């Protein structure tokens, strides 16, 4: 290519990237903007890119006079517990998938793939029916149980791909050095998979943090509401207070973004491992 032509190509490339970045960030920017716009300016300056005056009243209200801190806490409990439990179970399962050839493996993989294929909405009614007599509706434990089960298959595939990247020789060497297989797993393999476990933790946390439909179905009281449910009850209220809603939205975004930057490096591996997952 000639020089001017290459320059044009470079400029076009950067411009295209810029378009994508703007498109990706604009809605979040607007979210932030509305959350700091005072109510009296919200409508009069509806289309302005930035309000002439910014306030933190909405955050103040949401944090001090609403149930959102409770929702936030509930969501944190649910998402963190889910993430930790799933990571442990998936580490064990993924290890078995990666290191053993056994007769049931084909069926287990098949079962896990199946769970990724059918519409989860199918399960809403039966799960409600099963959990309700057990006292697990309207409870965080019930939600955690359901989320753990939903996320375990994908996380197992993900962990398997991380274990596959660790040479088998290492635990064989450990076993010859005098370790049982489980000790070799714990002392040699797990420390080496820590980054992978962190990524799995992040993926599952994000998934649990975002889950809406089962939370709506299984939780009806305020006490056990998660963030999505709480936020949605805002929408169904008679008049929507956009400022407060968006301030709450910003709060919901913070943990998700933190985990995102944390697992960013593993996105490619994660999404290839469980190409089905959102």
């Amino acid at each position, binding site marked *: 290519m000639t020089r001017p032509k290459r320059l044009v190509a470079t400029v076009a490339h950067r411009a295209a990237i810029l378009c994508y970045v703007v498109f990706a960030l604009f809605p979040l920017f607007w979210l932030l903007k509305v959350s700091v716009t005072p109510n009296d300016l919200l409508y009069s300056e509806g289309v302005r890119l930035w309000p002439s005056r910014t306030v933190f009243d909405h955050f103040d209200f949401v944090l001090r006079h609403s149930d959102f801190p409770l929702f936030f806490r509930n969501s944190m409990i649910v998402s963190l517990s889910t993430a930790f439990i799933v990571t442990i179970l998936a580490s064990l399962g993924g290890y078995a998938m990666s290191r053993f050839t056994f007769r049931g493996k084909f069926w287990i993989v098949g079962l896990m793939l199946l769970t990724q294929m059918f519409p989860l909405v199918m399960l809403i009614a*039966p799960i409600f029916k099963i959990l309700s007599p057990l006292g697990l509706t309207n409870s965080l434990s019930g939600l955690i149980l359901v989320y753990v089960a939903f996320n375990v298959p994908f996380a197992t595939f993900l962990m398997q791909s991380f274990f596959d990247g660790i040479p088998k020789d290492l635990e064989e060497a450990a076993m010859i050095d005098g370790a049982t297989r489980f000790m070799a797993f714990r002392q040699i393999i797990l420390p080496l998979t820590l980054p992978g476990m962190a990524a799995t933790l992040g993926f599952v946390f994000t998934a649990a943090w975002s889950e809406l439909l089962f939370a709506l179905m299984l939780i009806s009281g305020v006490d056990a509401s998660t963030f999505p449910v709480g936020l949605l009850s805002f929408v169904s209220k008679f008049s929507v207070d956009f400022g407060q809603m968006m301030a709450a939205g910003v709060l919901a975004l913070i943990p998700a973004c933190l985990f995102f930057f944390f697992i960013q490096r593993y996105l490619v591996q994660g999404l290839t491992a469980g190409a089905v997952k959102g």
Partner: protein
Amino acid sequence: MASEPYLYSAPALILIVTVMLVPLVIGISYAFRDMTLLDPFSGGFIGLDHFRAIAKDKTFWLALKNTVYWTGYSVALQFLFGLILALLLDKPFYGRGLAQALCFLPWAVPSFLSGLNWAMLFNPVVGPIPHWLYGLGLMSAPDNLLSSPTHAMWGPIIANVWWGIPFFAITLLAALQSIPRDLYEAAAIDGATPFQRFRSITLPFLAPTIAITVMLRTVWIANFADLIVVMTNGGPADRTQIVASYIFTQAFRRLDFGYASAIAMVLLALLLVYSMLIVLLRQTLLRER
């Protein structure tokens, strides 16, 4: 020890079976029973009544049509823009890491929040989009797209595209980066133009990834009701109701678990047929080559 792998996978397996497989089977049985949550006399076996009702249910047929529309446009646009983004990011440039992180950020936004976020952007009171569309002459008045009887579906679709581009971009980027660089160099030495290189190297290499991702993603999006539930709740007048959101509405708002399960089974059957068709199509295409 032969039982060792089972010990390691047992906890995960038990959970999957009890919380997913058993409810799935029970759910299938609901489809043939009269199951309403608040009605203590319900639970009886009613054969295929639900399915007969579905056949006559206008909303179901509308939802089915909407599902095709929603899924088709969402997947096509997500894929197209995702591919372009992946190609753009495949080239090294200063600040690529940051640009990539920012472009992928929508993936991390919880789906309910992206729904609310976009609903607000479409809202003429606080959002800019109606005013822009009006300014461009695309709308006769700055109205809310989400309440348009003809175009409401585009609201959730746009939100979905925004939210789903990173998924395709990430997957395709991974595939792109696994193409050996020396192939491009060899082709360049052989005198291939960039477009010829794209067609003769990039596309064939990406084809398997594209096929599998598009298929899985189609199934996933057809089932993905969050955005619609949050943004329009199926309205106006079921114009944005897709089958998955309709199932949720039946179960959650009407508490008619039997009917919801029956619709879910129909959806599952349709998705299975779709997957099978794709697999068959792929095989015939492969055989012809």
